[in-house]
């Protein structure tokens, strides 16, 4: 599965005879574009692990898995959107709006939390359609549309409740979204499930194929009969729904929701996507890369805390990581034998 976004390349790997399969497999892994970021992730983890033995314990790894789930889930959907050459800056606001709406419905009107959650997903569908239709029909950049909706949606969230909402009784909900299966947090299971489904959707389904074509050359896609606007709107919807879903998970974990929940999440999410190697200008997206990107962000955050790094320095470090990761991708893409030459 390492040839994440070059599906036709995948078959080459499957076809490789078992005899010298190991060598070939190794080469195939090394030449994928996710390899750079994977290597970077492993090196960072090992370095931190050497300095702090508590870092690479099963407990801490699972803990980091839980920490990254919210970002990663949104980033998987955002990968589709960016691959289709669009962008959503309003994911953080959508997360806040949906989880606040859900909490209020249950708290004030006594609606069952599951139904509130379903309604919040529905609201996200509508918000995604809104973002998508304004962008495609209005022919304005998604950057502008979603910059606007970022403020609008956050405004409504603050209007709904300027104070945090908490103390909602729904044990099953908490168990499903923030419980444990054995030692594994359910957030990690949800995240892995979404990553796998996302990867398959990107590489092996018509939808993923059309998303990549749309982002790669819109007019060629139109000439091939692909409904590019519908594809784009669908990606906006997917992203918004992922944000609402992530909101549910975050709520289950914290047991409360703040009107500022999710503020700034858009940047972390986009960072995870580009660190993972998805082209910011569309056409070329990798879900596995996004997963690794979100993991790298979490490893650095968590690692710096363990190393006793100063909070403010953490931000500076993350910024550097973003630039280094994209430099690595660009370099690998240029080098003969790098992913771009496959």
């Amino acid at each position, binding site marked *: 599965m390492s040839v994440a976004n*070059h599906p036709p390349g995948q*078959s080459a790997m*499957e076809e490789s005879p078992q005899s010298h399969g190991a060598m070939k497999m190794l080469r195939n892994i090394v030449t994928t574009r996710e390899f750079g970021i994977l290597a970077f992730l492993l090196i960072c983890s090992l370095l931190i692990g050497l300095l702090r033995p508590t870092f690479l314990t099963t407990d801490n790894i699972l803990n980091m898995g839980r920490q990254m789930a919210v970002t990663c889930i949104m980033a998987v959907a955002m990968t589709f959107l960016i691959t289709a050459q669009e962008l959503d800056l309003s994911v953080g606001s959508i997360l806040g709006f949906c989880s606040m709406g859900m909490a209020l419905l249950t708290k004030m009107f006594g609606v069952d939390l599951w139904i509130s959650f379903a309604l919040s997903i529905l609201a996200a569908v509508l918000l995604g359609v809104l973002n998508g239709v304004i962008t495609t029909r209005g022919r304005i950049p998604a950057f502008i549309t979603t910059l606007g909706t970022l403020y609008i949606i956050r405004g409504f969230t603050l209007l709904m409740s300027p104070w945090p909402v908490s103390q909602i009784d729904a044990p099953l909900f908490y168990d499903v979204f923030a419980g444990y299966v054995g030692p594994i947090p359910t957030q990690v299971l949800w995240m892995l499930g979404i990553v796998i489904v996302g990867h398959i959707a990107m590489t092996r389904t018509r939808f993923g194929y059309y998303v990549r074509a749309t982002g790669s050359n819109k007019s060629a896609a139109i*000439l091939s009969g692909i409904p590019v606007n519908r594809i784009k709107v669908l990606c906006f919807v997917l992203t918004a729904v992922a944000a609402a879903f992530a909101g549910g998970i975050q709520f289950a974990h914290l047991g409360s929701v703040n009107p500022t929940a999710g503020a700034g999440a858009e940047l972390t999410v986009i960072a995870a996507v580009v660190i993972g190697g998805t082209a910011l200008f569309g056409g070329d997206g990798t879900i596995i890369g996004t997963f690794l990107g979100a993991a790298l962000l979490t490893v650095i955050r968590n690692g710096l805390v363990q190393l006793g790094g100063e909070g403010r320095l953490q931000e500076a470090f993350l910024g550097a990581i973003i630039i280094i990761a994209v430099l690595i991708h660009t370099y690998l893409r240029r080098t003969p034998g790098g992913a771009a030459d*496959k």
Partner: protein
Amino acid sequence: MESAVPILEFEGISKRFGGVQALEDVSFAIPRGEIHALVGENGAGKSTLIRICGGVYRPDAGSIRFKGKEHVFRTVHESRNAGISIVHQEIPICPDLTAAENIFLGRALPKQGGLIDWREVNRRTTALFAQLGVRIDPRAQAASLTIAQQQLVVIAQALSLESDLLIMDEPTSALNQEETSNLFAILRQLRDRGITIVYVSHRLEEVFEIADSISSLRDGHYIGTVPKAGATPDQIVRMMVGREVTNLFPKVVSDFTPAPLLRVRNLAAQGLFSDVSFDLFGGEVLGLVGLQGSGTSDVLRSLFGKTPVSSGEIEVNGKPAHFRSSLDAIASGIAYVPANRQAEGLFSTLSVRDNGALLLVRRLARALGLVPLHELDRQMRAAVQRFSIRTSSISASIGSLSGGNQQKVVIARSLSTGPLIVLLDDPTRGIDVGAKAEIHHILNELTAAGCGVILVSSELPEVLAMSDRVITMYRGRVRGELGREQIDHEVVMRMATGADGAVGASPAPALSA
């Protein structure tokens, strides 16, 4: 069976874009089972008509009858499902997708357990390429293919649909002679199997080689259809242009300067070409002929400082020159017109003036970098006059011009620096006969003024007719050199395809005398 019914009939088709009437009341029919050429100047409306057939545009008025049945194609799928497949002009390809993914875009896909079976997609693509004699790895990313290969992918896609009607809008614009004749062989086979082909090209010799009959559009109007048998090129040109263009290649021989303007010795660029030596005299057009990938375009790019030189010497006007960038080359009096107008020549969001005056700005700028706009406008209006660029005004968007006029703007920009040496890479690609002749006149003016010109062209008759001397290249090396009286189509082709048997004939000794 019903061969009397034409496969495709246009009835009163009109289409307007804003202020431009692209098609007006176009009615004609295309008989079943022939190769039917559609010709016309840039902006005549050929591509618009084709896009209407393909469900990309909807006509403002009129209708299409396909196989005797009236159709309004609202989507690409409707047209495709009815049995029409189209190769569009602008080589629509998704650079991030593989060749195979491009071939299967928008089509039924082989599936396995509900998921796309890429292995099968690749297998079918391999089979398709083999059948067409195309050597492209189905798994290669489209961005890594040459333009010619990309064009072949697009052609293969259309051919694989096995439609009853195949429409090709300038399918050979990026292909070399060999690839073109391969394509023609396939087209003839298809025709013999009863498939109708509509073929658009600006290359008259192609049209005469392949077509059974020829229809012409001019300024959005249908002019007429003639059978090829009995038609003459002059007649076709008259139908396209509406006036006589007596000489397609109006070559005027000028006097050469005694000393060379440009001396190139043992020039090499890593992996592209090596050991290239020649002299270029003032007043001379030097044709560089070679197949795609033979290095001709790369030599031009190196001479303009765009491709780094790994060894060798360049002398301009007797002085050694080292170009680290295009700016150095421009400063030495060299001008360059790139082959890929859309990607390298045009600023698609800027006006005609801003496209044409870019290099003037530097020269006209005053203190603090302020540019006297009235002077810029004056010079641009003069350029529009000199090169007869047809545009509503110099502030019109470059996109509103036809391809030929866009190209003239690019040429005007390159020449605005008053260069001594002009490098032209395929200056007339995709340009109609009228505009071509005008560009050839510009060539004559340049040589008359004592400039030296190096011409690379995808159209062999053009280089052969316009050059005073021809150097052929094969696989990055100079193959030979022919003076004006020796220039012969067949000889040049043999040298350019490496079929002449000569091994690395170096022109340097002959030249340095």
